[in-house]
């Protein structure tokens, strides 16, 4: 493959994945509204299109057509930069996520992963850590006390939970002996559901920590303090409107999807079938390529449903509870998990 081909293929892949991700984001919003509606015993959006399926399009159009307000007091360069940082860091992560089996594509080219990086997991963590700036700068540059409070809360929360998040993944990395996401999945592929890290790898504790930290990292309920509307009107995005607000919105849902993808890859065997590799190999090449995609999407879907479920049922934490939980519960648990896993690995 020449350089030109490489670049062309890469551009195509990036474009397809980005579009897919944005569509997924849009429909995640719909999913959430529908599910929360059902949880609260109402219908959710149902007017636009069959079962409200066209609602995301309409929402998008609405955001786009709204007047773009820029308050006078803001620090403009950063005010404009912040949503871009937030959204782009949310979108970049998907670049290293493998969502299908390897080996499908011309000339050894990987069709179902934008880029297979040795340190894929670290890249995701790194990019996530950059995402903090979006929130932090948005709040500060808005020159609004609610925004500033929201962003300060958010930065502190993100930094605190990033630790627990990173540490919770160490157990998985120890099991796989690699940061490569494909290697991590392959390591769980043998016996289906029994060899998934969450069960076969005894990483249930790690998954729990990851889940909690992920809720916090994505500013989702019950850890949605940075945008707690009852206290801070809108938190860091109080002063944002129209498309810039939509970017934050999309970033949040894209992050949810990312987190779901990572959870799927690390704890639920990624694209592999829950029935093990015996049933996963068909003579039909097409099935072989598509079934893993289905499994991956299905697992992420379940994870998103979990997200929405939690949002629909749990109340919001208080700020000190949040910090205490992160530092005094999750962090020690994560360290305990690492110690336990490494001992288990050493004496296995």
């Amino acid at each position: 493959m020449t350089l030109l081909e490489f670049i062309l293929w890469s551009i195509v892949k990036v474009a397809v994945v980005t579009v897919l991700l944005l569509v997924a984001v849009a429909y995640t919003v719909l999913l959430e509204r529908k599910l929360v509606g059902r949880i609260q015993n109402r219908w959710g959006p149902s007017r636009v299109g069959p079962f409200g399926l066209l609602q995301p399009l309409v929402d998008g159009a609405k955001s786009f057509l709204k007047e773009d307000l820029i308050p006078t007091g803001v620090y403009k360069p950063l005010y404009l930069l912040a949503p871009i940082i937030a959204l782009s860091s949310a979108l970049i992560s998907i670049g290293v996520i493998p969502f299908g089996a390897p080996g499908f594509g011309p000339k050894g080219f990987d069709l179902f992963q934008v880029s297979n990086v040795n340190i894929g997991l670290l890249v995701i963590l790194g990019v996530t850590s950059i995402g903090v700036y979006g929130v932090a700068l948005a709040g500060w540059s808005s020159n609004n006390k609610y925004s500033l409070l929201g962003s300060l809360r958010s930065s502190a929360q993100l930094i605190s939970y990033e630790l627990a998040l990173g540490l919770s993944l160490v157990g998985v990395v120890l099991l796989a002996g690699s940061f490569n996401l494909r290697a991590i999945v392959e390591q769980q592929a043998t016996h289906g559901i029994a060899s998934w890290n969450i069960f076969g790898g005894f990483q249930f504790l790690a998954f729990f920590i990851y889940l909690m930290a992920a809720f916090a990292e994505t500013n989702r309920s019950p850890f949605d303090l940075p945008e707690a509307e009852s206290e801070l009107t809108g938190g860091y995005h109080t002063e944002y409107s129209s498309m810039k607000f939509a970017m934050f919105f999309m970033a949040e849902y894209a992050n949810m999807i990312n987190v779901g993808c990572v959870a799927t890859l690390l704890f639920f065997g990624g694209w592999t079938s829950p029935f093990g590799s015996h049933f996963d190999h068909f003579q039909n090449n097409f099935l072989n390529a598509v079934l893993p995609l289905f499994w991956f999407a299905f697992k992420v879907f379940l994870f998103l449903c979990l997200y929405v479920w939690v949002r629909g049922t749990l109340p919001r934490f208080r700020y000190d509870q949040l910090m205490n939980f992160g530092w005094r519960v999750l962090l020690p648990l994560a360290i305990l998990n690492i110690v336990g896993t490494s001992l288990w690995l050493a004496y296995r």
Partner: protein
Amino acid sequence: MSSALSQGVPLSAYLLLSAVLFALGVVGFLIKRNLITVFLSIELMLNAVNLSFVTFACQWHAVKGQIFVFFVMMVAAAEAAVGLAIIIAVYRARATLSVDRIDLMKL
């Protein structure tokens, strides 16, 4: 594919970049008046030196060069934590961050 893809970069270029960044860091230390920015300049110098370390690690295929950078990062993190705490304390005491106004040992 080839020539363009595998065209190497002389390591001296990295070293030069490192030297330039370091010099810029020193200049920043000399001309910046805000305590935080001065601190940022120090971080810039540290990063420049790190680049040299990684370059030499690449030159000699020595893993320890990279590990040294690792240690520098840890020290920088510790330094940032303490340094920023000091800056906060100084700001509380004097209500300014200008290095030219912070020139007395006592209040």
